[in-house]
């Protein structure tokens, strides 16, 4: 299991790297004329590619962040391993639900 989590975290990081760069670039581009909901929606609504882009983003974060959180809790807290696993899984679920909800709202 440790090895699987290690690989999952590294591979999701490899995927997230370029996605984060594009996302940051997009923010800089999008705010050039001020930022409005209508402007965002005009770009994203009905766009298969943006929904795939942000769908992948959300999935990678769902894998990547809770594993890191698990590592931090193992090192910095006295919480039992089982509880830490449950907390990490809960965070994964929250990231997945909130993330997919946001993606669904803009496409």
């Amino acid at each position, binding site marked *: 299991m*440790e*090895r699987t*989590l*290690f*690989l999952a975290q*590294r591979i999701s990081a490899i995927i997230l790297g370029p996605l984060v760069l594009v996302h940051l670039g997009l923010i800089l581009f999008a705010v050039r004329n001020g930022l409005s909901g209508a402007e965002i929606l005009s770009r994203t609504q009905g766009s298969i590619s943006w929904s795939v882009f942000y769908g992948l983003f959300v999935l990678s974060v769902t894998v990547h962040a809770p594993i890191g959180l698990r*590592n931090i809790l*193992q*090192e*910095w807290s006295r919480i039992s391993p089982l509880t830490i696993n449950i907390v990490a899984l809960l965070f994964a679920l929250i990231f997945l639900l909130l993330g997919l909800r946001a993606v669904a709202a803009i496409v």
Partner: protein
Amino acid sequence: MNKIKRETQELTVRVWRGKEDGKLVTYQVMSRENQTILDIITEIQRFQEPGLAYRFACRVGVCGSCAMTVNGRPRWTCRTHVKKVSHEGVLTIEPLRNLPRIKDLVCDLAPFIDTWQRAGAPFSGTKTRNDAPALVDPESSTRRAAEAGLQCINCAVCYSACDVVSWNRNYIGPAGLNRAWTLINDIRHSDRKQTFDQAFGDGGCGSCHSHGNCTRHCPIELNPSESIAGLKRVAFKGLPKDV
């Protein structure tokens, strides 16, 4: 004149006495040319504090039993010269970090030795005494990788230097994982897969932060951090081939 002056100078040495709830006790020791930390401890024990507990055996950097924390850093005390580490004539000598204390400067090394087993480190051969000895090509990449990690003297300096061990006592730590890496590169070892599974198991090499404090402090200049990086690469690329 200069020489006489140096010889009459005194060092202020603060030594840990007791167990976890002990305290630092200050001694004055004559400063001399060519004095090691172990010499200082021995002088205190012989002439001032017969009850002082500490460990050593070889006094020449072979056995690995004399490691202590000197002015905040783990060191082999028999090969550490006072001049190199004292701050304005003051030395603070404590037991190693990350290990249970027994008395004064002596730690219980059992948790450290256990990490060898947990890292999957016992060697298991495939041949019997009736077979010819295995031929290991000294130029092969596996042998060269193993060679770089051999010669560990089990001093626990790296284990004491590792912050991840201090945060997570379940972590196997640098020396055990370094040993696992040498075995994974030993073509005579029959259980390379098993060793890898243990080295990457619970508390295994995935927990290492690669910050290299183990390598920085290893007195014989091994590079456990690099060995652990090798283990992590195995997770992606599979066991090293003998090329």
